[in-house]
């Protein structure tokens, strides 16, 4: 019955009949219209808006190259290292596939970091896009897990000792820690058992979650509509006749052609790395990872790949002194600030009690525990961004000097922490990382106050042209 009621598909030439046949049995045209030809995106997207589609593109590269890599890779401690070299040397075009995968990993993070920074610039996470943002942060977490599990697979020295260091972090958790670490590794040290399970996570578990989250991210995006560099809602001003946003244009063909151009620019950068500098000076493929994993030889200097180094710096910055002289006073000061700003007595009480419990923990538990907590917090804090930002405007274009300074400082410390994470520890570097860590957290924890008192400019009614 329903089949007969649907209109025949037109405009597809020789395929009209086939598409009509499908459309009467599947919501083909409806989906096409809803997500492409009648999905209205703001017309004023700038450079920063390329990175969402690019991240999706890299995801496809990673999945396709990953499938071909698994055909020759052996998740076996005795064979893994050599099987990667086998791919590099003897599998036809294997080197190309492998370099695309290893370069793709780093460029995935570059795209995702720039995509997140875009959201921070233009307040894309603000109401009604909180859930969209949360899905995004979940994707980021999955990506980190995916990268971490994948990095063990080549079974080089850095793979091995990087995994050892990170899994040992779980050891720091009070009571259950040591058993938890053994449970994760499947052994008392990182070993063949660990390699096998990391392989399973890397090729099945995490990619499945990642794909599901990407679908949820896109569905949420298409529900609320894209934000834009002015941070104003294009849905507020519609053509009274057609009901379409005046500042919106159909995603297809306008943004599909624009993003295609973006993909080609991306491919040029990508290919420059893949063909002419695949190890990117030791940043994308670390030198030490060309030495097979040796459980008896700890390298003098263990550093994660560049995309984890900001968080690794935060972990290493958390020394006993840092906990005593910065973290503990920080908790007290922040609790006082909260109590001063909150009106309700019950809330004040809760804050006070939480602060006392935290303080007791800070003074009694090992600094290593707090390093892990801070590292986890430095990533998880992104979830709360929609509620930390209380500015009357969304976009940096109309925000005041305090927010602009804070965001600039945040970017600087992110780079400084990232750089310090690649280097070995010295007293000076630890101090620098501690300052960086403090600024990193102040950016988030003080945001509810500075974003509110900042002197913002009025938002325009409609988007401004580029």
């Amino acid at each position, binding site marked *: 019955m329903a089949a007969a009621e649907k209109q025949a598909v037109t405009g597809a030439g020789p395929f009209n009949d086939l598409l009509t046949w499908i459309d009467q049995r599947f919501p083909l045209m409806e989906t096409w219209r809803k997500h492409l030809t009648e999905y209205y995106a703001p*017309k004023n997207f700038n450079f920063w808006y390329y990175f969402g589609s690019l991240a999706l593109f890299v995801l496809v590269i990673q999945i396709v190259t990953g499938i071909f890599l698994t055909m020759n890779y052996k998740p076996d401690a005795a064979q893994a290292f*050599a099987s990667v*070299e*086998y791919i*590099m*040397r*003897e599998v036809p075009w294997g*080197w*190309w596939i492998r*370099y695309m995968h290893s370069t793709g990993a780093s460029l995935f993070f570059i795209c995702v970091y720039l995509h997140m920074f875009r959201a921070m610039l233009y307040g894309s996470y603000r109401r009604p896009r909180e859930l969209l943002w949360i899905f995004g942060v979940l994707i980021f977490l999955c990506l980190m897990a995916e990268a971490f599990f994948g990095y063990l697979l080549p079974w080089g020295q850095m793979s091995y000792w990087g995994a050892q260091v990170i899994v040992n972090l779980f050891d720091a958790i009070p009571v259950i820690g040591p058993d938890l670490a053994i449970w994760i590794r499947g052994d008392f040290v990182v070993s063949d058992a660990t390699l096998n399970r990391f392989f399973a996570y890397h090729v099945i578990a995490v990619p499945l979650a990642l794909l599901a989250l990407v679908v949820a991210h896109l569905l949420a995006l298409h529900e609320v509509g894209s934000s834009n560099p002015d941070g104003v809602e294009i849905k507020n001003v519609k053509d009274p006749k057609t009901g379409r946003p005046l500042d919106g*244009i159909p995603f297809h*063909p*306008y943004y599909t*052609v*624009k993003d*295609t*151009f973006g*993909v*080609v*620019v991306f*491919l*040029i950068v990508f*290919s*420059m790395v*893949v*063909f*002419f500098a*695949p*190890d990117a000076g030791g940043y994308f493929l670390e*030198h*030490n990872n*060309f*030495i*097979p994993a040796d459980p008896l030889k700890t390298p003098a200097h263990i550093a994660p790949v560049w995309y984890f180094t900001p968080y690794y710096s935060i972990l290493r910055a958390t020394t006993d002194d840092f906990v005593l002289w910065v973290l503990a006073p920080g908790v007290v000061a922040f609790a006082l600030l909260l109590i001063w700003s909150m009106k309700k007595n019950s809330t004040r009480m809760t804050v006070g009690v939480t602060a006392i419990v935290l303080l007791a923990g800070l003074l009694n538990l090992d600094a290593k525990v707090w390093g892990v907590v801070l590292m986890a917090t430095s990533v998880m804090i992104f979830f709360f961004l929609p509620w930390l930002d209380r500015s009357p405007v969304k976009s940096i274009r109309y925000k005041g000097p305090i927010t602009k300074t804070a965001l600039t*400082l945040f970017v*600087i410390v992110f*780079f*400084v922490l990232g*750089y*310090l994470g690649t*280097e070995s520890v*010295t*007293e*000076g*570097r630890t*101090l*620098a990382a501690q*300052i*960086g860590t403090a600024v990193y957290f102040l950016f988030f924890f003080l945001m509810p106050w500075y974003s509110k008192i900042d002197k913002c400019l009025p938002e325009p009614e409609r988007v401004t*042209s580029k």
Partner: protein
Amino acid sequence: MKALVVLLALAAQLALAAEEPVRLDSAPIDPRDVASLQTGARSFVNYCLNCHSAGMMRYHKLLDLGLTEQQVKENLLFTTDKIGELMNVAMTRKDAKEWLGTAPPDLSVIARARGPDWLYTYMRSFYRDPESATGWNNMVFEHVAMPHVLWTLSGQQVQEERKFKNMEQAEAVGRQQKNAWKIDVLTPDQAGKDGERFILKTIRTETAGSLSQIEYDIMVRDLVNFMTWMSEPNQITRKQVGYVVMLVLLVLLVLTYLLYKEFWKDVH
């Protein structure tokens, strides 16, 4: 920006307080120089492949260096008689550990781990050290378990120390060296009254080998060239493919840009 610069400067200063690593010579290699690669392959098979394996490298791949199967079989095949075999050694890791103290590492990708400059400097930095078990020591890799296998070619070197009052002087003399050099920095207390805190360590040839220093350097250059090629035998192909891909992408860049501009003409 300012904060960044200050922090980095602070970090750099504190890093310099420790002992200086050895200054590596830049290896004058060229992976397209087939003659050099062939010579390097011969040296590698003759001198390295007795203790070190290159277990991810197949003899057959040597045909890429412009050699015929016959040439490889006659000149380079000692550990096996099949050209399809991997470059393995007869010595087991267990035996190696017993005889040498540590198993010699596989050299298939060592050039990617250490870098050509390190290898080039290392092979030219052995010196006599009566206190070590093998009688040899190395400027680049202190107390290395490997003896100086090529000493009949290079001759015997000894280490020399010269003291200087400032870093610039020590570095100036160091830069004139043909071999590796490094500068150890003493604290003012350790230096004593004369205040000569900067110790330049260099090596000097005591007895000549069968090759002159230049000939030996060229031999090591060829060897390192081969090892660098071996660490990624497809590197030349990779770059050649890269040029073609870039060309295609540049054409696509123009086409997609024009397409984008054409569609966007009516967006105001």
